[in-house]
């Protein structure tokens, strides 16, 4: 891995660069609603959190899930249902979504970690497709119509989330907490074990780690945090639909992580921003989004596998270093 081969000075530069970027980023996000359409910003934040949560699994555990839409869209349904039908306040609704996604992750992970690599990807895809068909038929999702007109409600009974700035800073707060949680997980002893599994599963096993349990734990955490993102999205847009559970959504989040940089903290956020921005700008044009998405996928895989942030690290901090592919 690049981190280990960098000299100490470079590690320091890297750390400093990261902190500067993070500081600029947070200031930018705090100021953003005064310059950019808040709904668009909130959409970006939701997807950024989703991409970070996905990256926890792909980037730090080395598991490519092709089924993360189930957690994102599933949590959106759970939250929307809890708030709209059960009349729960938004913070409890989000909790319902998060716990629901975690349980879903537990079930899907239980089956998926039985196989590795490419099979893991196919199994997660198949299981999420099964969940999609379930959502099509289950009464609580509203079928093709989805759940619409979900009230945003009063946060802790105090803050009216229908006020644009209130909801924006709420979403930003949850986003920052979520990303911080991922950062903590990644940099904890637990996270180190996940990385060792990514680098060499057999060696991790021989060191005495029960790889299956660690994988499952990472899968559940990733699912729960993806669910958090989905719950937020349901509250922001006030609806939950089949689009969020469809396999295309699983592809989108992969693209976000890949484009920004798999295995970097900032990469998926930037990737999510770019993908959402691209979708927004294409929405008004004639050019189909799927073609653009597919082309970026192909280009990324062929010549840009480290992603934007990964390339940046490699070029700026490790010039002339070996290509890790």
């Amino acid at each position, binding site marked *: 891995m690049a981190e280990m081969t960098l000299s100490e000075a470079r590690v320091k530069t890297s750390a400093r660069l990261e902190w500067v970027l993070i500081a600029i980023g947070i200031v930018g996000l705090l100021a953003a609603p005064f310059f950019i359409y808040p709904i668009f910003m909130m959409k970006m934040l939701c997807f950024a959190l989703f991409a970070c949560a996905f990256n926890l699994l792909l980037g730090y555990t080395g598991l490519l899930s092709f089924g993360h839409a189930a957690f994102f869209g599933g949590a959106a349904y759970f939250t929307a249902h809890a708030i709209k039908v059960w009349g729960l306040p938004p913070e409890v609704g989000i909790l319902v979504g998060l716990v629901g996604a975690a349980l879903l992750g537990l079930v899907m992970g239980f089956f998926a970690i039985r*196989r590795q690599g490419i099979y893991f990807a*196919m199994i997660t895809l198949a299981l999420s497709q099964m969940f999609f068909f379930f959502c099509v038929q289950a009464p609580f999702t509203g079928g093709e119509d989805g759940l619409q007109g979900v009230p945003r409600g009063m946060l802790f009974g105090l803050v009216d989330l229908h006020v644009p700035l209130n909801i924006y800073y709420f979403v930003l707060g949850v986003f920052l907490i979520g990303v911080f949680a991922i950062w903590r997980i990644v940099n904890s002893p637990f996270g180190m074990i996940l990385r060792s599994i990514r680098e060499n599963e057999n060696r991790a096993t021989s060191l005495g780690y029960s790889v299956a349990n660690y994988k499952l734990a990472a899968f559940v955490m990733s699912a729960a945090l993806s669910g958090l993102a989905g719950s937020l999205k349901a509250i922001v847009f006030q609806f939950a639909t089949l689009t969020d559970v469809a*396999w295309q959504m699983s592809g989108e989040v992969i693209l976000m992580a890949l484009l920004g940089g798999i295995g970097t903290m900032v990469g998926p956020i930037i990737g999510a921003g770019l993908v959402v921005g691209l979708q927004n700008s294409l929405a008004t044009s004639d050019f189909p989004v799927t073609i653009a998405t597919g082309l970026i996928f*192909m280009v990324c895989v062929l010549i840009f596998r480290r992603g934007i942030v990964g390339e940046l690290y490699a070029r700026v901090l490790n010039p002339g270093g070996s290509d890790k592919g």
Partner: protein
Amino acid sequence: MTMIFGIPVQAFLGQLLVGLINGSFYAMLSLGLAIIFGLLRVINFAHGAQYMLGAFVGYLLLVHLGIGYWPALIIAPIIVGIFGIVIERLALSKLYDIDPLYGLLFTFGLALVIEGVFRYYYGVSGNPYSVPALLAGGTNLGFMFLPNYRGWVVVASLAVCLGTWFAIEKTRLGAYLRAATENPRLVQAFGVNVPLLLTLTYGLGSALAGLAGILAAPVYQVSPLMGSNLIIVVFAVVVVGGMGSIMGAIVTGYMLGLAEGLTKVFYPEASSIVIFVIMAIVLLVRPAGLFGKDA
């Protein structure tokens, strides 16, 4: 009316036939996936898109050039196969040395592009492709009415599957292919042109998908989305069967098609998920898949 398990026998056999037809396509597609994966270590996500491409080539040949079903049955797979060869040469061949997941991601992107292009020009609604005159109508088998074309699909797909199996297991070229699957370097050292073999394999796999597509055109409607939903089911089929054996892929394809048909008779609500449920059960009982060798 004769009943079987409380279901009219006609309805029962009808659904079984639908299951058999679906199973034919699962078998042909998972066979192609297994062949490609065996040698290239790439899961071809674009397989569904290539299937759709086969159907569309047939449709466009008919609409624009007036070329009918029978010539299209030859031309469509060749065109899709050539398309596959170009893709392999230009892109996939650059990805063999890295993690196989990148091959999956690349072909996923490719599938999105192909599908997007066809959606852009032809919309999402299906285009009917009529059954060739020779196979129009049906035959009364006494116990049920069999549309001739559907019978032909079952026979043709069986022939294709068995033919492919024979070519791989019993011919010299197939022996090279199997040897290269086991140990590509050694086979190359013996003077076999392995890169060419890889290219041809991907071409063959794509052509199989294209052939399945043109066979499917008169059964289902020709639509840009016909491949993407199918491919996910085929992935589940491949997980159930394990990609270690050609025959395993074929048998699993038919079996799961029939299982789906049976579910439609007894519990229609579950018919769209039954294959995934079977996949989950197989993962519990036999994680390597029914015919799989690798864990």
